[in-house]
């Protein structure tokens, strides 16, 4: 597959945020992108479907989940980790 994990994650977030992928910066937080709690849960669902992985995320304790959602870069890194663990 041609696209990297990073490009695919950014495309998913961009679609949820109704933005162009090119306008998304790695340091942006998800709030910066205007994603609310439902948008976040939808993004995670889309990521799980796209990569066939299971993302450990509970909306009640987003800070405590092992899945870091503090920035776009953090989400990309977390997804890369889950994808790598799946391949291993």
């Amino acid at each position, binding site marked *: 597959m041609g696209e990297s994990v990073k490009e695919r994650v950014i495309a998913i977030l961009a679609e949820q945020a109704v933005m162009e992928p090119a306008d998304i910066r790695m340091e942006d937080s998800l709030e910066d992108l205007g994603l609310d709690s439902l948008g976040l849960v939808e993004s995670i669902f889309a990521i799980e479907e796209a990569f066939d992985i299971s993302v450990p*995320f*509970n909306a*009640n304790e987003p800070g405590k989940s092992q899945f870091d959602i503090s920035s776009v870069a953090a989400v990309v890194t977390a997804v890369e980790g889950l994808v790598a663990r799946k391949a291993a």
Partner: protein
Amino acid sequence: MKRVVITGAGTINALAQDVPGTLAAMREGRGGIGPLDIRDVDRLNVKIGAQVKGWHPEDHFSRQQILLYDRYTQFTLHAARQAVAQAGLDFDGHLGYETGVVLGTAGGGLTTQDENYRAVYEEGKNRVHPFVVPKLMNNAAASHLSMEFNIKGPSFTVATACASSNHAMGLAFQMIRSGACRAMLTGGAEAMLCFGGIKAWEGLRVMSTDACRPFSLNRSGMVQGEGAAIYFFEEYEQARRRGAEILAEVIGFAMTSDASDIVMPSKQGAARAIAGALRDAGLNPEDVGYINAHGTGTSANDKTECAAIADVFGPHADRLMISSTKAMHGHAIGGTGAIEMLACLLALREDVIPPTIGYEEPDPECALDVVPNVARQARVPVVLSNAFAFGGMNAVLAVRRAP
């Protein structure tokens, strides 16, 4: 305006299959949450729930009835039989025409839907049982109650997600108060603990996989329950004349809509419902001693609910007790308000405030007296019962000790 009292109660839930057993569990702070025993549980992430165990429909219903009764209908009838027996009335005479049934449920016959979708989609069957539709419909339980007891007045079902049975009981109250009916069977039921029911909730990522800890800083979400509670509401003068034992008096009800978000609760919407119930009952905030909270154990609900209570009650918020009994009987969705009315009866009749079990760490955003872990002896004249649903639909009842 007529006064409205409760003269019969019945239930089945994860704590017990009757009222005394349920109240005993609430007194003892005993929980009903445990491993789920349902088909395909291995494909679920959430494997816990407050499930009714040891339920054998064949002990209560004929084979023909069971073919027509979804699990939620079975629960409803089982609870209603207890309530009607306690009220000690029959509806064969004129009373039948002046009595109605208003029930709350969110999913209705969801177990029937789940089983039959599985049959046609997964197993590829092209034929289903002829009673699937009358079994799954949301008004099936209300209809079967009317048939079982010969109740011929206004009967219907309301569906407002997690507030369904509070809306139902509130409407039943208003119908007697206005003189439209002399008595009502009311409450609600839910039986959503099937594969599809839980899988759908998993999607929202608000479910806990370990425990329900309302108001506790380390809360991890809600845990679903199931069951029913049904009450006999009747006009006070009739109850007094016939010498019925009065369990409590319903004195106020209010409902509001947030008009804001399909899942996130609003402090203003909740506060308006609480304040509205006080106004409807002619109460001052200081009159309320206990609130049975909606208290789902989700971050969004618990913080919003505490803020709404603080807004309405001001300094009195620090003196009243609130608890969420969902940590014991689980969140029984459309039936939950009805089951929680039992906690209110425990407080009003036995001077026992049921606890919020599973509580471990204070949350500064829920800094109220949540009666952690252990029931408390206290005499309270008036209690409220909160229900705040997805879709922003709120319903709050005010109840006081028997006159």
